[in-house]
């Protein structure tokens, strides 16, 4: 053993530093299935309370859907609990390939490969398909998992200003001497809830001979008129060279992710992507659950339609109440508070009113951009949204921020 007191003290000091800086994260224990109504123990040891969940990625309300749960049971009964293998040794069941084909059909791509998570998909895809002769040009606000994947790749790295097409064009022009260019973006940006203009990006990529990769984790299942994703919203289905997405949010919310896109690029991942080659297959129980999710979504758009209506209702309610919101038309509705302490206090006051919504501040979002990120679900009924709105207004009045501008809030609470 070499975990000396000196070593322990070092780590204790680092953790204390996080606490002192107000950056120490604490988990809340949920004692119920994921849903609009949940039972939460917070802080640890406190009495369990029934609250309305306003911050889950459970966009379509499928995380605890009875048909999905039943399908998962079937997967467990028929195919067992785990595979005890990576895919290419003895970890591929027929249902894994069935799911890959189903995702391909749903997203309108050429082929798909499953990963243990979208974090793994993003960690593996770049190094599998690019070399040092290529360049990756990414939006400056892409998700952390894309950033990590880019870091693991030997290709040249560059960025463009968030959703700035003129800047992207400059970069594409500048990098014409590279073998391949890959433009990288989120479909829906998770912190702000805005979307990448994939139609314009697609045009630029054609003009400058570049591939495009979109991470649609906060879009698959509900963005676009049949929920195929951001590429459907912008009318460019079939034009995305790579889509990465997760099954851990709208698509059942369990685990798993994928790379879907051009046949050769998917095959390159199957041959070379390290998180695919060196981690276990998705468990059969999860595969069957996801297959049921796709069956539900391909039979009807009812759930994404309800989500769209709920999100519009919620956004309008907050706007009319006088909150400062980030512009957008997705189910991610950030309520801007700018000051980190205010965001934390606001979240706590909401919890006292029976509403569970977490505050986000630096380094998750830029300095002085602290917020409560609300996320709407098809699992919400209007009475949930009305109760949440009532609580937001009550707490908004308590802190006297309703009808106040960004500057007025900053003047009062600081950056």
């Amino acid at each position, binding site marked *: 053993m070499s975990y000396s007191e000196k070593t322990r003290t070092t780590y204790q000091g680092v953790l204390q530093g996080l606490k002192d800086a107000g950056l120490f994260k604490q988990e809340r224990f949920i004692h119920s299935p994921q849903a609009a109504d949940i039972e939460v123990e917070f802080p640890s040891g406190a009495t369990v309370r029934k609250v309305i969940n306003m911050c889950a990625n459970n966009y379509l309300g499928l995380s605890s859907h009875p048909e999905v749960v039943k399908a998962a049971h079937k997967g467990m009964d028929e195919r067992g609990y785990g595979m005890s293998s990576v895919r290419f040794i003895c970890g591929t069941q027929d249902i894994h390939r069935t799911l890959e084909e189903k995702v391909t059909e749903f997203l309108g791509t050429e082929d798909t490969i499953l990963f243990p998570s979208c974090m793994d998909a993003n960690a593996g895809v770049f190094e599998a398909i690019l070399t040092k002769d290529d360049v990756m040009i*990414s939006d*400056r606000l892409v998700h952390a998992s894309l*950033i990590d994947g*880019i870091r693991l790749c030997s290709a*040249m*790295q*560059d*960025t463009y*200003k968030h959703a700035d097409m003129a800047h992207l064009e400059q*970069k594409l022009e*500048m990098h014409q001497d590279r073998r391949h260019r890959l433009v990288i973006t989120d479909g829906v940006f998770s912190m702000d809830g805005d979307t990448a203009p994939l139609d314009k990006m697609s045009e630029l990529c054609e003009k400058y001979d570049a591939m495009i990769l979109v991470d649609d984790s906060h879009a698959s299942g509900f963005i676009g008129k049949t929920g195929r994703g951001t590429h459907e919203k912008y009318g460019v289905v079939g034009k995305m060279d790579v889509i990465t997405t997760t099954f851990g949010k709208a698509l059942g919310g369990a685990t798993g992710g994928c790379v879907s896109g051009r046949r050769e690029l998917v095959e390159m991942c199957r041959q070379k992507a390290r998180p695919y080659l060196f981690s276990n297959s998705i468990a059969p129980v999860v595969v069957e659950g996801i297959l049921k999710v796709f069956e539900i979504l391909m039979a009807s758009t009812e759930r994404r339609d309800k989500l769209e209506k709920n999100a519009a209702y919620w956004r309008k309610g907050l706007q009319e109440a006088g909150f400062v919101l980030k512009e957008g038309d997705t189910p991610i509705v950030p309520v801007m508070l700018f000051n980190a302490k205010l965001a934390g206090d606001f979240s706590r006051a909401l919890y006292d009113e029976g509403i569970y919504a977490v505050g986000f501040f630096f380094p998750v979002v830029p300095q002085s951009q602290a917020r409560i990120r609300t996320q709407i679900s098809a699992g919400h009924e209007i009475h949930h949204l009305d109760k949440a709105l009532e609580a937001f207004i009550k707490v908004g009045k308590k802190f006297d921020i309703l009808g106040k501008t960004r500057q007025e809030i900053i003047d009062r609470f600081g950056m």
Partner: protein
Amino acid sequence: MADELKDIVLKYVIAEYLEDGADPITYDTPLISGGIVDSFSMVSLKRFLENKYKISIPDDQATPEAFDSVDKIAVLVRKFTQA
């Protein structure tokens, strides 16, 4: 004292990296250690300098330290233009 090279670099850095409404920067503002330019975005600055001044900066000299301010970048560029 006015310095044409530094002014060109400063202008590029402002246009390329600063968001609207950001605090103004000067020749000695820390760019990378100050969080204005991240390591991903450094490549465009390197390529800009190489194209503009017809030089080639080896990767082992294009370090975050060497790119950390307009002053330091000017030193680096002059080293190669005078070589």
